[in-house]
C-alpha cells in the first residue's frame, strides 16, 4: 500500500465492490478483471444489513450479498485463496466486526494480507479511546474519513491516525451514490485538506461516477474511489466497458 502511493505518477484508481455480489463467488472473476484494467487497489465492502452512510445502490448490493449467504468466514476463505496481488482495503460497519470478535477479525485480516480498513461508523475519538491499541497490535492501518466540513484540527488528527494508509476524503456532504459538487469552492477546500494531511495520502470518494468526474475530483490528490457507479455497471453486466474508460 505504501509503495503504491510512493511510486505513483498519476492519481490512483480504487474500485469499491461488495463481497458476495452479484454472486457469492464472484470475487476472483472481478479481481482478474481489475488486474487486467487500470485499477490500483480494491475497496472490498463487507455487507451489512443497515449501512447507514450508504445510498440505495450499495445497500441493494449488500442485501443481495447477504441473501447469497456472504459472511466473514466465507469472505476470509475467499481472500486466502485469491490469485490477484492487488492491495485490498476492507470496508465495513463496526457491528459485524465486533460480533465476529475484533481480534479474530484482525488476525484473519493479517493472514489474508489485507492492506487497510475503512470503518465508517468508527468515530475518531472513540477509536482512540477504545480500539486503537487493538488495531495497532496487528499493524493494519485504519483509513479515516474526512469531509469538507471537518475542522482543520480534526483533519490533522485523521491524517496522523491514517498515516500508514490514506485519508478518505468524502467529496461532498452526502451518502454514497450522489453527485460530486464540482464547484471551485470545494476544489479549493480539497487542496487545503490535502495540505493539512501532510505526508498522508488523500483518496477522494463518494459521487465519482466516470472518468470525467474522476479526473476532476482526483487531480491534485492521490486518487479516487468509485463505488456506486461501478456497482450499477456490474448490475447490468457492463463492468468491463465501465473500466475501459480508465
Amino acid at each position, binding site marked *: 500500500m505504501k509503495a503504491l502511493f510512493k511510486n505513483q505518477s498519476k492519481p490512483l484508481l480504487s474500485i469499491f465492490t461488495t463481497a458476495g455480489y452479484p454472486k457469492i463467488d464472484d470475487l476472483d472473476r472481478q479481481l482478474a478483471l481489475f488486474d487486467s484494467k487500470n485499477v490500483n487497489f480494491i475497496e472490498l465492502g463487507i455487507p451489512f444489513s*443497515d449501512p447507514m452512510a450508504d445510498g440505495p445502490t450499495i*445497500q441493494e448490493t449488500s442485501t443481495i450479498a447477504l441473501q447469497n449467504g456472504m459472511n466473514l468466514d466465507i469472505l476470509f476463505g475467499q481472500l486466502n485463496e485469491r490469485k490477484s496481488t492487488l492491495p485490498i482495503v476492507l470496508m465495513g460497519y463496526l457491528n459485524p466486526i465486533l460480533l465476529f470478535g475484533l481480534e479474530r477479525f484482525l488476525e484473519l485480516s493479517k493472514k489474508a494480507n489485507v492492506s487497510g480498513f475503512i470503518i465508517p461508523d468508527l468515530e475518531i475519538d472513540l477509536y482512540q479511546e477504545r480500539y486503537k491499541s487493538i488495531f495497532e497490535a496487528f499493524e493494519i492501518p485504519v483509513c479515516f474519513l474526512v469531509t469538507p466540513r471537518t475542522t482543520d484540527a480534526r483533519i490533522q488528527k485523521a491524517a496522523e491516525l491514517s498515516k500508514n494508509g490514506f485519508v478518505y476524503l468524502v467529496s461532498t456532504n452526502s451518502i454514497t451514490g450522489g453527485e460530486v459538487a464540482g464547484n471551485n469552492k470545494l476544489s479549493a477546500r480539497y487542496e487545503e485538506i490535502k495540505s493539512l494531511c501532510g505526508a498522508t495520502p488523500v483518496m477522494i470518494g463518494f459521487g465519482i461516477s466516470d472518468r470525467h468526474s474522476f479526473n476532476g475530483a482526483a487531480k491534485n490528490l492521490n486518487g479516487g474511489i468509485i463505488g456506486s457507479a461501478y456497482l450499477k455497471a456490474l448490475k447490468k453486466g457492463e463492468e468491463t466497458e465501465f473500466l475501459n474508460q480508465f
Partner: protein
Amino acid sequence: MKSILETDELGFYGEFGGAYIPELLYPSVQELKEAFFKYKGDEDFIAEFKHLLKDYVGRPTPLYFSKKLSEKHGAQIFLKREDLNHTGAHKINNTIGQILLAKRMGKTQIVAETGAGQHGVATATVCALMDMECTIYMGAKDIDRQAPNVERMKYMGAKVVSAESGSKTLKDATNEAIRHWINNPDTFYLIGSVVGPHPYPAMVAYFQAVISEEIKKQLLQKTNHEKPDIVIACVGGGSNAAGAFYHFYDDENVRLIAVEAGGLGIKSGKSAATAVLGKPGVIHGSYTLLMQDAYGQIVEPHSISAGLDYPGIGPLHAATISSGRVEAIAINDNEALNAAQLLAKSEGIIPALETAHALAALNHCEFKKNDVVVINLSGRGDKDMQTLLNNKYDESTF
C-alpha cells in the same frame, strides 16, 4: 456516588452508549451536543418547556389509583396517565423539548423517524406549532399498518416519506432519517426514543424525566410515600421507561421493571425481547444490546405492538439491565391483548398495545400488601382498535 444517569465524556453509560457515527454526521452531532448541554440548564429554556407542557400538552398528567387492579393483585396500584397527554402518549414530552432546542439552534427543518406513528404524530404536531418544515420517515409496512396516523401527520402539514429499504419498518425508517440528516446537515433530527448516538439517549431521557418528577410529587400528596416501591414501564427503545425511572434510578430501594415484547414467545424466533435475546453491538450510532444473527446482521424483531418491535434498546437500559439495577420481563402478544381487554373492561381505559405489556407484567410480579406500584400508562389505545378487535382474548383471565 456517581449517578447512573451520568455518562462519560464520550457518552457511555458504563459499557453502553457512545456515538458511533460516520464523519459526515460528526459536525451535526457536535452542534447538537453543545446546544443541549447549554440549554438544559438555561432558565428561560426550562420555563418555556414547562409552560408548553402545562398549557399545550396538558400536564401534569394524573396519577390514578386503580382500586380494581389493587384488589386483584394485592398491592396499591397507581396508573400514571401519560395517555391523557395531547396526541395521546408520552412521546410529546420529548418532541416539545427537542423542538424548543431546534428553535434556539436556528433550525427550520425537522426530520424524524416513526414506527407506529406516535412519535411521527407528536413531531408533526410540534412542527405545526413552531412553523417548522417536517419530514417523517416511516417504513412502507408501517404506513400500511398505521394508516390513521399517516393521515394525522399529513393533515398537520408533515411530509411522510415511505422507507422502502431493508425490512421496511422502524429500523429502516431510522436509517433513512439518518441518511436524510447526512444529506441535509442543517436539518434537525428529532429522534423519538432514548436511542441513537450521544447526546440523544441522555437528551430524550432528560425531556421525559418529567414523568417521574410528577410521580414523586403526586405520590407524596396522595399517600405520604416519598417514593414508590415498584415502577413498571414497557420498553421498545425505552423512552417512557427512561422517563418513569429517571428520578428513581439512584435509589436502590425502588424496584424498576422494564417490560419488553416477548412476541410469540422468546424461544419462538418471533420476539422483540432484546434484553434476553440481544447481544452487545452497534445500531443507529450507539453501542447497546441488539437483536442480531451469528454474523452481526441486525434481525427484524416481532411484536404485536408496532411501538415495541425495535431491534435495539436504549444504552441506558442496556447498562441498567446488565448491571441488575433494572429487571427485564418479556410479555407475549396474547398476554398483552388480555391485559388491554382487562383494563378496558374494569377501568374504562383502553391502553395502547405497548402499554398493555406493562400492565400484563403485574401477573408476573409478587407483591407485599402495602407495596406502592406505579405503572406508566404510556399511551392510549385508539390507534390499536383494529388489532384489539381482530385478536380474540382469553375470557378465563377475568
